């Protein structure tokens, strides 16, 4: 199995798109809760955070990326919405890779990398079903999108903070 020299593609759309999606979701939130009473700040925080992640997932390429897919699926599960994505047999993949790991001797998969990859899987959404090499790609894209989202939110906050 010769290693293919494909360039790793982790392009991230421009900030405008992120900003747009985020503002959209925010305005949706506002319309949904017209009362905006000061009662439950924590609820609102959670909703905004959720909106941030979801708008990021949508801006970053919808269902093209594993992590965004997992994020959106997680969100739709919470809302009991119909799952619109095509089901990938993720769990089967995971079991296969762990089987392979068990069958051969343990040294085959550079245990240091694997152990840290486990921890990485916990943070990157949808990481449970990926092999380490795919996980790296997804992590790279996720990091880029996250930093973009943070910048957008930061700008928004700075713009909106008063006087």
């Amino acid at each position: 199995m010769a290693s293919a020299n494909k360039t790793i593609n982790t392009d991230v759309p421009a900030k405008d798109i992120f900003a747009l999606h985020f503002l959209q979701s925010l305005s949706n939130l506002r319309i949904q809760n017209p009362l905006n009473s000061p009662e439950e700040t924590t609820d609102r925080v959670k909703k905004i955070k959720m909106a941030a992640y979801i708008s990021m997932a949508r801006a970053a390429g919808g269902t093209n990326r594993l992590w965004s897919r997992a994020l959106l699926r997680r969100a739709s599960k919470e809302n009991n919405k119909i799952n619109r994505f095509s089901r990938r047999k993720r769990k089967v993949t995971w079991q296969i890779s762990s089987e392979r790991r068990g069958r051969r001797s343990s040294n085959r998969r550079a245990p240091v990398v694997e152990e840290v990859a486990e921890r990485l899987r916990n943070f990157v959404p949808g990481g449970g079903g990926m092999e380490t090499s795919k996980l790296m790609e997804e992590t790279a894209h996720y990091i880029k999108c996250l930093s973009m989202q943070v910048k957008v939110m930061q700008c928004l906050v700075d713009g909106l903070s008063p006087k």
Partner: protein
Amino acid sequence: MLEGLVSQESFMDMSVLERLKWVQQQQQQLQQVVSQSSNNSPGLFQILQFHGSNNDELLQSTFSHVQMLGSGFGPNYNMGFGSQHEAMDGCISRTSSCHMESVDAMGFMLKNNEENRVIALKNKRKQEVKTSEEEKAEKKIKVEIETESSMKGKSNMSITEASSDTSKETSKGASENQKLDYIHVRARRGQATDRHSLAERARREKISKKMKYLQDIVPGCNKVTGKAGMLDEIINYVQCLQRQVEFLSMKLAVLNPELEINMEDVSVKQFQAYFTNLPVVGASKQSIMVDVPLFPLDQQGSLDLSAINPNQTTSIEAPSASWEAQSQNLYNTSSFGFQY
């Protein structure tokens, strides 16, 4: 404000302690690694002692850095690498109970988060530079130990043992070590018919290639050698970003109800001003250069909101035309299906 300062000072002490604890944890981890491998080479013990002697230097360097940064930023300066989370948590708990005034202080902290992280990593580099050579040697030894010990569960001393199988395996292990530096896959002696290990080799190279790509993205990964440390940095970075998102969403939640009334008054062009000043790649860069003095971003460290003049944002060009149309839709429609 005074009580804020006092709490911030105790906060700084905590972060120094956290940093010491982190260093001690690192030492303990090193010791564990050494004890796990049955190799008793004296070089490793020397490395440990060297690490131990670094503690005082670390303390001094941290204090000097704190003084450097001055009073405003000093208490906010996060010296611990793992303690950034504690810092953020402490700030988050404070924001939830305080009023709007503290939010500005948090804003300061947030703006300096990137700075702090860079400075914290620079500090780390100072330490790492001294021990980088030793670490490289140590990690090489560690890798050797792992591959060889995992081959047959034997130690370094087993090279000299008599069985032909072990000699083949260990020679394979040694050749594997050398091949870690190269990209191409080559069948070495004793490996010709072993397709599994060849595939394994190719897979590992793919992974290392991707790790290098990740290294370029995550700032501050360049000086940390070894896969484990780098991955730790990456995990740290992801965690930091996620906490930042959480923090910013909290801030937005605080700001939002107050601006509920203002949101309708805010014109489309004002909002465009907020976002077109982001460093967008492309043709609209020229408009950004014009607008920068009007709307300094967090990169410049201070935000002069009084300088906002939304009427001057008419210099927005064609690339954002679709943006304009879309954002107008945002404010004009009242019924948006809430799509998650």
